[in-house]
């Protein structure tokens, strides 16, 4: 697989604790990579190593087929979790400054900023001071500045904190557009619902080590607990006594007005969905069935508390 970023066996220790212990991740090009883990697990340290803010004690980081070098800074965009702006500076001036620090010329920065300000409908903020903006507004400006220089790799650390739902959607759709255009994204968050929605691959870091990594769908399948949700028509039936040994009804709920019932059933690991159906059709009119994969939230908690 074509990878944009590969970290191999990264070790990083501070005076009295190990921040990263033999951490390896591989981010496929053009995908969204979720970097998960509880607070203090080492995510920020890893991100800082990728951004060359600090260097690892040992291990290698490869970016776009090369060893990570200072010149790569301009090909990476980073939106840190703890982010801010100069309060007394005007929005436009500040955006220009930050864009130029990322290597854009004054002219390029101006054209692109105008474009994005129109896109996000914030053109009239250009001459406002940052202290006049709400937190969400400032976040929009920061988002723009992060992606403005068309980086090959974007790193978002808790990008949605402080946004209202409307702007979260706006941001998500922009992220998806960026990904579809070939940008790779590392996305660090605690919000597991957004992981399922956005991420293709993840790495879960706990206590300085990668404890789980891979494709989201595969991980969910790996953690499957053989649970199916199904609906059937007619009167509610107590299914538990009718099913064979090992099959367990987890929940059952009639929807009287709509004339159907929904049930969750867990089957033995060595059984198949067809076995369940064969048993069920004897008793009820099945209208739909689907496997319920464990949520990333469950997997996260299960892995971290293990």
């Amino acid at each position, binding site marked *: 697989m074509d990878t944009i970023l590969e970290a191999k066996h990264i070790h990083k220790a501070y*005076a009295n604790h190990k921040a990263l212990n033999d951490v390896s991740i591989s981010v496929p090009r053009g995908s969204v990579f979720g970097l998960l883990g509880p607070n203090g697990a080492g995510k920020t340290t890893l991100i800082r190593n990728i951004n060359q*803010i600090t260097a690892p004690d040992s291990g290698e980081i490869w970016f776009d087929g090369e060893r990570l070098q200072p010149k790569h*800074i301009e090909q990476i965009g*980073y939106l*840190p979790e703890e982010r801010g*702006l*100069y309060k007394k500076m005007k929005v436009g001036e500040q955006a220009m*400054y*930050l864009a*130029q620090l990322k290597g854009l010329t004054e002219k390029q920065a101006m054209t692109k900023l105008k474009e994005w300000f129109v896109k996000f409908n914030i053109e009239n903020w250009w001459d406002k001071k940052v202290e006049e903006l709400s937190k969400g507004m400032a976040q929009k400006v920061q988002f723009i500045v992060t992606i403005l220089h068309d980086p090959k790799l974007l790193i978002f650390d808790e990008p949605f904190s402080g946004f209202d739902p409307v702007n979260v959607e706006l941001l998500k759709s922009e992220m998806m557009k960026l990904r579809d255009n070939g940008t790779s994204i590392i996305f660090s968050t605690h919000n597991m619902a957004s992981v399922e929605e956005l991420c293709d691959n993840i790495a879960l870091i706990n206590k300085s080590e990668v404890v789980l990594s891979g494709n989201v769908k595969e991980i969910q399948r790996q953690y499957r607990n053989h649970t199916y949700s199904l609906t059937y028509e007619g009167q509610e039936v107590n299914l538990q006594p009718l099913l064979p040994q090992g099959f367990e009804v987890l929940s059952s709920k009639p929807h009287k007005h709509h004339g159907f019932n929904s049930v969750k059933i867990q089957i033995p690991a060595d059984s198949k969905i067809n076995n369940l159906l064969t048993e069920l059709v004897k008793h009820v009119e099945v209208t739909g069935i689907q496997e319920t994969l464990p949520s990333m939230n469950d997997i996260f908690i299960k892995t971290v508390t293990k």
Partner: protein
Amino acid sequence: MKSKILLIIRREYMTRVKKKSFIIMTILGPVLFASLAIIPVFLMKVSSSKETVAVVDESHIFYNRLENSEKLVFTNVENIDEAKEQLKKGTYDLVLHIEKADSDKANPVALFYNKKQPGMDPISAIQKQLQDVLQNKLLMQTYHITTEDYNKIKAVRIDVKAQDVRTGEESSTAIKTGIGFISGILLFMFVVMFCTQVMQGVIEEKSNRIIEVIVSSVKPFQIMMGKIVGIAMVGLTQFVLWIVLTFGLVFVVGTAMASKFTQTEITQSMNIGTMVDPEVAGQIETTALIEKMLSGVGNIDFTLIIIMFFIYFIGGYLLYAALYAAVGSAVDSEADTQQFMAPLMTPLMIGYIAALMLVGNPHGTAAFWLSIIPFTSPMVMMMRVGFGVPAWELALSIGLLIAGFMFTTWLAAKIYRVGILMYGKKVNYKELWKWLRY
């Protein structure tokens, strides 16, 4: 990469120069400096209110011997009780009661006032007049010396002129002392003022969390140096503007005042300004003295002093600015800086106080060493420069200052790069020591 540090310098410079406080300080500074020179003259003019003094002289020595002046008018009154009554009514401002003296002793004198206590000026003026009268009486009656002879004796004066043996140039030690004094103080003020700005800037970036954004595109060292250099340029801008505006203002107001007040009034006020004992110098002598001083000014190498001021301002500023930046990076808010400020302020204060105290002995051992050691050298060497310092001493001092700020910058950078990304940690010296070894 180089252009990025320029971007940072430009931002640091532009945001500060455009601030209202900078513009206000730039305009207000010269007004303050100029008023230091002008206000004494002005006060002399406006404070000339007349006070009527009723004199009750029981010894009859002083009657008609007290001379009226611009500020004091003496009236003879026979009865002390009556005089006090009139004082209460407001006819007189003061009542001077001179009692008879026993034999050779001085007369007991009391000065009565009604609510408004007189200041030092009228009291010392009266005291001086009384003393003169007594002295004259004593001289004539006991030693048979006439007033004229006495004045001749008093007028005998000797001036010691400091003269350069090589150039034969004369220059005024008083002026050089003044320049040494002022440049030492100014340098201290400037270094503290702009170093504090560096520290506040670092704290602002850290508490804003913008540092996280910037540090992903620029190296911490570049951010720190960009800030330090940018603020140094703000300092130099302000300094140059102050010089230009101050001289302009003093010139304009001085010209205006010269036409309004007589030369004597201006020199009188300068007496006060320069702390020359007004008693010894008559008005004409003072004018001569001032003229001499001004001719001495011409012999002072101002170019050297100004160049040295720039060098020592920049050197001293760089030496301390890096350390101030390190302190700013280590804390979360300005309130936490106190524990680190003492070790920074102490050497600065030592230099400042030494510059003031050693101005009388600018070539002594203490002055020499303190002007060589980088942490105190900016203030102390500036004090010495006007008096003529051997080239090798200047070279050594400047060389050590450069080495000093390279060392502090290196040290500070190590603390800074760790500190700016460290939040919510109560930092102490042990912690800083750890950061140095990361």
